[in-house]
Each structure stands twice: as C-alpha cells, then as structure tokens.
C-alpha cells in the first residue's frame, strides 16, 4: 500500500543512513586490521553492530505496529460509512449515503501528554482550544467576543471581585449524572490548586450558591474572566481522580471512545448532548509527523491533514489546500534597556544596540512583511503588527507600512552612519545584533534568515543562531529571539508588555512603561468587557505613549502564519475563528458542524 510504503521511507531512510555509517565503519576496520599484526577483531565494532541491529529491529517493529493500528483505525472509521476511504473508485460513483465520520491528522506534539484533563492543559494549556469532551461556561464567538455555553447569565460585582454565573439545569454528564453548580465550583477550585499550565492565581474560591448558581470570588479584579471560562472544561466531581485524564467524562459534544497513546484518539458524538446534535458522529485524530501526514494525504487515507508552507507548492489528488487565518504570530523582542544590568539570578539584561529607540523604529519600518510572507510562507500568511492582530482589543495604530526611506532617515538621525564595509556605526560601535531562533523550527529559522537579509540592506548586520529552549528564555533577556505567540485572550498583552508583579521589567524581554502598565491594570479592573477592550487598546497606544511604532516598540511583529491543511474534496470544514498559536486542536473546535457533501 502506498501509505505503508511512504511511512516506510521515513524509517528505512533513517536506517539506511545508520547502516551506511555502520558499513563504512566496518570497511574502515579492515584498514585497521591490515595495520595491526594481532588479528584481533575489536569487540566494539561487534557491540556497536549488535546495538544498531537491535535498535533497527525494534524501530521497525514500532513503526509497523503504528502503521497497522492506524490502518485499523482508518478501516474502523470507514466501516461506519461502509466504503473504503482510500478507494478513489468508490468515491466517484458512490451512491451518497450520509458519511458522518472524519479522520484528522495532527502533529505528534498535539497529543495531550497527561490526557484529557483540564488541570493538565487540555484546552486550557499553552495552546488554547475548545475541550470538545467537556462543556465550558462560556465560548468565544467568531469575532472572539463572549457567548454562553453552560452559562445562562453572568454578573460581576461593582468592585470586580465577585462573578455570579447561573447555568443551565438540563445538562447531564455522559455517565448519566446531572451537572450542577457544585461540579463547576469543584472544577475551578481543583484547577486553582493543581493547574500547572494556566494561571488561576486570581481566583480565591468558587462556591455553589444553589444547583444552578455559582459564585467566583477573586483576589484581584479580572475583567477578562469570561475568556478563562471559555477554555475551562467542567469535570464531574463524582468521577474525578488521578486517572481522569485517561478516562475523561464530560458533558460536551463528544465522548472519548478510545485512546492509543502515541497513535490516535477516537471521539464519538454524545447522544445526550444538550445543544445541537453533532453532525459528525465519529472523529478520529491521528498523530503524525509532517512528512508522514503528507504521505497519508497522498495515499488518500485521511480526510484532513495538517501541513506547512514548505509543502504548499505540492498538489495532492483528491485534496485541496485549506488555509486558515490565524493570530499565530511570529516576531522578535528587542531588549529596550542598555546592557549592564542583571536580574536577581545574575542573568544579563539588556542590549546596547537595541536599546536605541531610533534603531527599533527603523527596524520596524525596514521590514517588508509582504516580501517575507511571499518568500518564507509561500504567500500563506498575513502581516502582523501586534501580538493580537484582528482581536477585539487590537489597536490599529500599531499598523506600520514598509518605508525604507524613513527607516534610513531615522538611522541617520540617530547617528548611525554607514562605515567602509557598508555596516553602520555610531561612536565606534557597529550596528549589529544576534537573532536567536528555536533550533528545531525551520519556519522561524527562515524568518530569522529573511530578517537578516532585509536588514543587511539598511547596514544592520544580523547573525542568526539556533538555540534550544533550555537556554533561549534566559538569553532572550539580552538577545533578540524569534518568538511565536497569539491567544484568544488579552492576557497575552499583559504577559508580554506588563512589568512582572515582583520584578523590575516585563517577563520575556526587559521593558517597562508605567503608562502602559496602568492602562492594563485599569483594563483588568474594568467592570465591563467592551470598556476593557478600549483600555487594552489604550495600553498599546494612547496618543502619546505605548508599544507601537510611535511608542517604545519593544517587540517587532512580522507575520501571522496561516494554518494549512490538506482537505479531502467533499469535506465541508465549518467556518473557523482565527486560530491561536499552536497548529493543533483549533481546527476541530467546530468539528461537530462539519459535513460531507458529494456533488
């Protein structure tokens, strides 16, 4: 089968390289033995060969197991339809009975390591998405405002410290028990105590006033609490334990039927769901590397497979490329203070070159974002001007057009003059900096390289360097780093630009502006979401100061990366809201509304 064959290439080529190395090693050994008058065969070679062989075999077996089980999954899924999904002939002349299952491929890193427990990041983790298995109190709408799921009403007290939420009374968990306010309170109190991935420090306690009313008492005003409620899946108090992640019970649209760790998850529609019944009855998620996902699409065995811009110039028969706009942005920080300081752990802070505001403004004007999208992303992206483009709290003042003349002028004005080698200098200092990127991320590497190319035309020398995440966070305090952000909550602005509560500067890159801090604090204290959006905008630019081009500009934003998928012809993927950072679960946020449509 083609699928198997392509998967095989992945393993066999790795093996081939190893065998090649091994073969040459042995070949070279012969030379040694000629030389040696004792014809003793070194043990090491034998041991090495044995180990290689063993690892090769086990690698093979692992690979085959994986392929087989994925095939069973594909077959199982196809049985519900009664036709082979990979069989092009049946598709063409198929008498259309409603197909209501879908096979989706995601990257291996999308698999929730600790299972489907909100306390360990399911839905509410680094990459936010709707938890599918569990219900949430609120949901975010297509324009990222707030709507209700379980909740029927919510009120916030005058001082912003008490949220009172009433919930539906007709909701049952899939084990038959009713969901009441006690479960909601239990969920939030549990997450406050155990969540390792999301911030619940603002919550003092949650309490059930009666069966349908729950009260959240906060430590500090937090006007964007509804955005936290939109990603927190409600778990049943009676069936929650250490094993919950593997056997989740919820009240959401889907029931987790089967989870083969490292391979796949199968969801089935919840027959007792209180909302509109899911149209897709069965959803199978496979976890594969990018090249395996592409191969799976080539062989026609999956319905939707993630892919990246690197593959976007390929064509796959029977599939089309589906592109989702995102706020999955990429940008780099420019430490806004001069070098010399260190934080409490002795980590060096600041950078003498990027602390020059003229330099930061010139860089922002010198970046040709459209060229970057064309070059690096094959056109699959949008220009980014902030960490929250197109969100309700985005301030359009951040938009900066590419303006090479202005960039030159600002650099000249700030005293950076071109030297003999074409690189600018000021007081004997060269205009140069290192730009880090996470070593495993080829898109960020390419963006860093393109940034270096573009800035070199302005006489700024940029040296790119791959770094592991073990050192990147610390080094970013003094050296620009290519980051990726983007979330469905204004809290991200706070995390990036607001001074750390107990520190002197913002967390990820040294920067401090009291007016910006104050506006964000006010936004959190505001009693009204609409009003708070305006305050978040004010934090970005209030007419005199902020974090935009005319303000302090401690971060440069480059592009929002479109999330790309191979979608089988006939599959109607429902309209997507802007995807946040993380090319994973967001696509299936509304899988219940997807349909098949054979014309």
């Amino acid at each position, binding site marked *: 089968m083609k699928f198997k064959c392509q998967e095989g290439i992945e393993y066999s080529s790795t093996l081939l390289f190893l065998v090649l190395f091994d073969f040459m090693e042995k070949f*070279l050994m012969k030379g040694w033995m000629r030389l040696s008058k004792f014809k003793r065969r070194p043990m090491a070679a034998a041991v090495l060969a044995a180990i290689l062989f063993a690892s090769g075999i086990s690698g093979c077996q692992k690979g085959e197991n994986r392929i087989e089980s994925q095939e069973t999954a594909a077959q199982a899924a196809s049985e519900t339809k009664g036709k082979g999904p990979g069989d092009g002939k049946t598709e063409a002349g198929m008498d259309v009975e409603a197909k209501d299952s879908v096979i989706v491929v995601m990257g291996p890193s999308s698999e929730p390591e600790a299972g489907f427990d909100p306390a360990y990041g399911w839905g509410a983790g680094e990459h936010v998405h709707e938890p599918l298995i569990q219900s949430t109190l609120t949901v975010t709408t297509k324009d990222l405002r707030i709507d209700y799921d379980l909740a029927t009403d919510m009120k916030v007290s005058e001082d912003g410290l008490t949220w009172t939420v009433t919930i539906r009374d007709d909701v049952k968990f899939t084990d038959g028990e009713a969901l009441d306010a006690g479960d909601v309170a239990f969920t939030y109190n549990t997450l406050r105590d155990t969540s390792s991935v999301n911030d619940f420090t603002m919550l003092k306690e949650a309490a059930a006033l009666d069966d349908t009313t729950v009260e959240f008492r906060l430590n500090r005003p937090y006007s964007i609490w509804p955005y936290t409620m939109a990603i927190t899946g409600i778990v049943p108090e009676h069936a929650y334990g250490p094993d919950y992640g593997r056997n989740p019970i919820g009240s959401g649209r889907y029931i987790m039927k089967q989870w083969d760790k490292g391979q796949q998850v199968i969801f089935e529609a919840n027959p007792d769901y209180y909302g509109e019944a899911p149209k897709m009855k069965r959803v199978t998620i496979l976890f594969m590397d990018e090249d395996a996902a592409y191969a799976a699409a080539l062989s026609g065995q999956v319905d939707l497979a993630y892919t990246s811009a690197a593959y976007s110039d390929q064509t796959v028969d029977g599939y089309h490329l589906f592109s989702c706009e995102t706020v999955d942005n990429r940008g780099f920080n420019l430490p806004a203070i001069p070098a010399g300081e260190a934080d409490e752990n002795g980590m060096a802070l600041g950078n003498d070159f990027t602390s020059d505001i003229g330099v930061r403004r010139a860089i922002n004007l010198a970046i040709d974002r459209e060229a970057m999208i064309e070059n690096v992303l094959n056109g699959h992206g949008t220009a980014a001007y902030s960490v929250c483009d197109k969100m309700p709290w985005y301030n359009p003042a951040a938009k900066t057009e590419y303006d090479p003349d202005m960039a030159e002028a600002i650099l000249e004005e700030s005293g950076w003059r071109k030297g003999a080698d074409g690189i600018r200098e000021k007081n004997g200092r060269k205009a140069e900096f290192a730009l880090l990127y996470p070593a495993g991320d080829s898109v960020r590497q390419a963006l860093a390289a393109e940034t270096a190319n573009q800035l070199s035309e302005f006489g700024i020398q940029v040296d790119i360097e791959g770094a592991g995440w073990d050192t990147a966070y610390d080094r970013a305090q003094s050296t620009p780093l290519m980051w990726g952000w983007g979330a469905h909550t204004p809290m991200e602005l706070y995390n990036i630009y607001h001074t750390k509560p107990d520190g002197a500067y913002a967390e990820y890159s040294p920067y401090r502006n009291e007016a910006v801090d104050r506006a964000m604090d006010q936004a959190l204290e505001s009693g009204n979401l609409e009003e708070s959006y305006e305050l978040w905008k004010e934090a970005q630019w209030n007419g005199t100061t902020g974090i935009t081009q005319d303000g302090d500009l401690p971060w440069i934003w480059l592009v929002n990366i479109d999330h790309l998928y191979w979608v089988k012809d006939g599959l109607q993927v429902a309209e997507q809201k802007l995807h946040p950072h993380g090319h994973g679960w967001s696509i299936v946020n509304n899988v219940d509304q997807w349909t098949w449509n054979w014309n």
Partner: protein
Amino acid sequence: MTGNKRRMTAICFIGAVVFLSTVTILGSFWQEAAVETDFSRKNLAPCARYLFGTDWMGRDMFIRTVTGLSMSIRIGLLTAAVSAVIAFFLGLSAAVMGRFVDGIVTMMIDLVMGVPHMLLLILISFACGKGFWGVTAGIAFTHWASLARLIRGEVLQLKESQYIKIAEKLGKSRFYIAFFHMAPNLAPQFVTGLILMFPHAILHEASITFLGFGLSPEKPAIGIILSESMKYLAMGKWWLALFPGLFLVLVVLMFHCAGQAVCRMIDPGSAHE
C-alpha cells in the same frame, strides 16, 4: 611490477591529498556563502549553476556541502591529532612503565571500547555543552582507544627484540629507550593509524550532527544537511540527500585511499603483498 605498483600508490596518495585539500581550502573560503540565504532561488533542482540544487531557503547546496565537509575535515584533523597524541602516550606508557600502569591503561581502553561508540560520543558532547567544542571534545576523547591498543601491542613486541634488550643491558633508562629506540620504530604504524583515524572522526562528526547533538542548524555541517534533507524526501527532492551523501562517502574513501597508500609506502613489506 613493483615499480608500477609503487607509482600507482604514489599517484593515489597525491590525488587523494589534492582532492581533500581542495575541499578543505574551498570550504574555508566559502564560510560566508554557505549560510547565505536567497529566497529568489529556493527549491531549485540541480543545474549547471547550482550543481547540487538549492534548498527551501535558497542556499546553494554544493557550497554548503563542500563547506560542511571542509569543517568535517578540519574537525577530523584536530580530533585525530589529539586522539593520536593521547594514544601514543598511553600506548607507550602502558608498555614501558610496568604492569600496574599497563593494567590501568588496558582497562581504560576496554572501557572506552566496550561502551557503544555513538553513546559515549553523545554523552561527552552533551557534557561539554554541545556545539562545536562539544562535538570536537566528544570525538577527540573517544577515538584514541584502538590506536592505543595497537601501539601497546607493538611496544610489547619490540620489548622482546634483541636491540632493546641490549640497550637495557647497557644501562639506558626506560624513557631513553622508549623515546629514542622505540618511537622511531613505531612511526609507520603511528602515521598510518593517524590518517586512518580521519574517516572515523568524520563519519562520527556526521552522525552526531545528524542526530542533532551537534551544531546550530544554520551552520553548514554534513550531518545537518543530511537530516534536513530527510524531511524533503517525501516531496521527491531526492537531490538534497543524494549528492551530499555521495560527497561524504567520496571524502571518506579518499582518506581511506590516502591511508592505505601511506601504509604501503612507509612499510615496504606490504608493497610486495
């Protein structure tokens, strides 16, 4: 016949040396060009202008391969030299300084050779902070064992020979004998062993960068080139893997040739085989 074979050997040797030094020198001149990205020429198949094609960031793969191999050769030279020095002194001292030292050195040799080579290499590179110096240290500290064993064996044999025994009777010190009587006799094995160590070092540099324990990904290194190319095999871009791979094999074979040729030239006996 023998004259003809000698000439062939010499030609082989000179050819290999010229090829390898060309690669090394070209590569060190192309340092800048190898990391240069130009998105206007990305994903080109091999053509007259770009012999090995270009990759997804528009880097010239021929230049990148040559530069990567040039770095491999330089790392190979450095680490082989360090290894050889370690091997020489350990081998010599094992044989000359008595049973106790011999026991320790033999144990160290067995230890290093007993642990799978790649594993030890990864361990040392990781401990030395990865990167260029991690790789260099890892390779340098793992390749001495077999040469040390060889030299120890030679020395043990020499110890039994008449002229060494006579020197001992004449009252020469152990160290005098080791350096003035034994060392010259060890030279052929040592030099050949040194040259034959290069290809090992290069292959191991390739494997460790291939596994991602080595250098930052924008650096041109043959292992990085090969591991990046794997991703593009599924898209049918075979040239990204094939040509750099063949070039690596070629360089390793050239070293092997050179080593064999030196072996024949220094050790005249083998020319008559």
